[in-house]
């Protein structure tokens, strides 16, 4: 079947989708967006977290057909998404979201932790780098999407709020402390404290 959906602000269509396929598979294998990771395919690890109509979900547990006509934000579109939310321009120039080719070619343009300028990173991504919250990086896309959504809802989270919001995302490397640091840092920067 064919599935039409909006991914990172642009309409996309995926063809030859098997009816039992997951949204994660569509994103990775049909649209060529491997940012969302596939680790468990059973909702346990959160590395496939995307926003579906704004809500963080495990894309491995969304049937492709359920995403028909819906709006999806993946880690590849997070920087543009955050910029638009903050009322700024778009990194991609035109405010029409992130195209597939741009998204596929996406990489952190730089890691200037001093200024964060021109790096093409969302504040949460920059904070993860600055706090050293990325080791192998496999869990990172899911954590970024989940943490970004929490900060949107709750700009001044307590540690307990952060732990709860990220309780569906497993990391096998960092021991979570640096991830906590990163989210605290992003919250502080968002509040203008740093």
């Amino acid at each position: 079947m064919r599935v039409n959906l909006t991914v990172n602000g642009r309409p996309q269509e995926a063809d030859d989708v098997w009816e039992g396929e997951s949204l994660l598979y569509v994103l990775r294998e049909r649209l060529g967006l491997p940012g969302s990771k596939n680790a468990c395919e059973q909702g346990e690890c959160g590395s496939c977290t995307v926003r579906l109509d704004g809500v963080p979900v495990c894309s491995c547990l969304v049937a492709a057909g359920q995403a028909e006509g819906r709006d999806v934000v993946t880690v590849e579109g997070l920087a543009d998404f955050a910029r638009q939310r903050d009322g700024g321009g778009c990194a991609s120039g035109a405010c029409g979201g992130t195209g597939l080719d741009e998204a596929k070619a996406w990489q952190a343009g730089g890691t200037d932790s001093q200024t964060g300028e021109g790096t093409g990173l969302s504040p949460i991504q920059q904070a993860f780098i600055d706090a050293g919250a990325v080791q192998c990086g496999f869990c990172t896309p899911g954590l970024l999407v989940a943490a970004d959504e929490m900060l949107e809802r709750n700009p001044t989270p307590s540690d307990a709020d952060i732990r709860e919001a990220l309780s569906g995302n497993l990391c096998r490397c960092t021991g979570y402390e640096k991830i906590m640091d990163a989210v605290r840092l992003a919250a502080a920067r968002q509040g203008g404290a740093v």
Partner: protein
Amino acid sequence: MDFLRPASWEEALAAKAEHPAAVPIAGGTDVMVEINFDHRRPEYLLDLTRIGDLYEWEVGEDSVRLGASVPYTRIMENLRTELPGLALASHTVASPQIRNRGGVGGNLGTASPAGDAHPALLAAGAEVEAESAARGTRLIPIDAFYTGVKRNALQPDELIRAVHVKKADGPQQFSKVGTRNAMVIAVCAFGLALHPHTRTVRTGIGSAAPTPVRATTAEEFLNAALEEGGFWDNGKIITPSVAKQFADLCSAACNPIDDVRGTASYRRHAVGVLARRTLTWTWESYRGTHRATEGAA
């Protein structure tokens, strides 16, 4: 495989009547795991996510009519006062991502003995609103809904439209044993609701028998003991011996198995502990409000 995408409840019932073997999919947090792991290859998937009615709830005089697909997150955020037991149970389900998708309709559809909504529904008192195109609507009492391990009272052509859950008329608690706070399928779970209006106590046990069950003998014992001691009126602390007897009877209501999550004897023991704790918590809260109203009078 065919993906059926009804746009309305009537269309969904018609599709289910035409294809009784179709597997409904709501949040997909049970169904997709089975498909991803090739444990299930249904001929038809019946997507319910386009039916807006299933995501709504109505707070009535005595009960809340909770749409089958209302996600756990919404229950936690919006129904804490009316359905405190279910809101607590919802909060223990998996993770935010899962709670954003999964709901009570899916929990009832799966009817796992470990489903967290069940003890809360049993303790509060509830009816499942099932509907078919051929026979219309019927209300299935929650006590009659669970018919076996992962089996329920639904007919092949029926879908769950909503659950009618009694609004709390007293304190409610839900408690669950697991290895960590998040992402844990219950080793065992316990729900307890005080119903001061009828001077009764109801319970629900999860993950300690082939189906979710009530500890009816324990309830009868406690109802009689509370009545006899005038506890509902005098608001006294429940005698430790009464609490102990209640806990023992709750343990006795279990019929658990050994599995990877825990042994049968551990489960029996832990259910007793949870029963005593939830009784203490709810009774303390009842005494608090009782004293407050006495003071005001």
